[in-house]
């Protein structure tokens, strides 16, 4: 019976570790995809400007002037989705690790799974904070003249969603833990 319980605890711990790995790989894949999508969206548009040359004999000077014209980047929401996926798998892994701990707390693999699921939840929180802070700082660079719709969907909504995600992760991970069934 004890042997059976140890095997179950080990199996749960392995599942928990694999969930973290799947979450981290998904974060990587969605983030790389968001970088790819960024190639199609530019916050600047370029207009050809013609300036007269200082000497009448020379040709006029031509160059492209960059004009700041921010757009809503899908990558903002893709990055948020990547963090969401990682946070959810980390919370799930933590729940499974807690179940394994309740079955056999002194097992080395169970302890490893418990520690790594905790680290994964903390990492998800750190990623969420970095995302919200980076969005806030980039919004300061935009200034106040941006289109209100772009401003709302590129700045306010992602920050609010990130805050919601952080709150949910903290509460689910550390405060409102789900009951751990022994079976």
């Amino acid at each position, binding site marked *: 019976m004890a042997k059976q319980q140890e095997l179950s605890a080990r199996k749960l711990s392995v599942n928990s570790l694999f969930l973290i790995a799947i979450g981290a790989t998904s974060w*990587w894949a969605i983030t790389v995809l968001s*970088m790819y999508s960024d190639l*199609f969206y530019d916050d*600047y*548009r*370029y207009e050809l400007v013609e300036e007269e040359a200082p000497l009448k004999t020379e040709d006029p000077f*031509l160059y492209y002037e960059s004009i700041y014209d921010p757009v809503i980047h899908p990558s903002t929401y893709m990055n948020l989705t990547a963090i969401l996926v990682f946070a959810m798998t980390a919370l799930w892994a933590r729940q499974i690790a807690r179940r394994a701990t309740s079955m056999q707390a002194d097992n*080395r693999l169970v*302890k*490893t799974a418990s520690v790594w699921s905790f680290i994964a939840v903390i990492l998800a929180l750190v990623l969420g904070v970095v995302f919200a802070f980076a969005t806030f700082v980039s919004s300061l660079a935009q200034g106040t003249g941006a289109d209100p719709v772009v401003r709302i969907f590129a700045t306010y909504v992602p920050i609010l969603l990130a805050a919601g995600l952080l709150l949910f992760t903290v509460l689910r991970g550390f405060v409102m833990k789900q009951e751990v069934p022994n079976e």
Partner: protein
Amino acid sequence: MNEKKARNSLAYGFASPIAGAALGVILGLAIYDIFDTFEQWTVAILIALLGISIWIGANKSGEALAYFKKSGELSAAKGAANLNSILAIVWMAISFFVSFTMAMGAVNSFVERPDYDGREPYNPADYTVAFDSTIFVGEFLPAVVIVAMAMFGFVFQLVATSKDED
């Protein structure tokens, strides 16, 4: 497992990651010297080599730890297991970082810009994003392989180093 086998496992636990790292460095240098290039797939192979050597070390130190836990002589076995655990963490973190930068480089390589002869003004918006199978296979695919190796290999390493019984 008897004590002799456990001591052998312990020795392998310490030796395997060191031998793997040395072999990886030598192999990498040799490839660079012979072919005068360092392709992304070479990085993937070297990371795989290092990962396998750490996994063997973790496996062997895990076996030794499980045996010495019963006999009470724990310090050296614990040292080997901890060494391999730390190496596994470092390996995973470096591999993840390498794969991420490699993928970023590959994504940027999909951008094609026209050649300027110097007389016409440079237009930063004048570029196309085109799928290139050579870049995908040569630069992006190794990044995918490395991240998968880093994440799932790390789990195998942790499981190997966390053995409690034979």
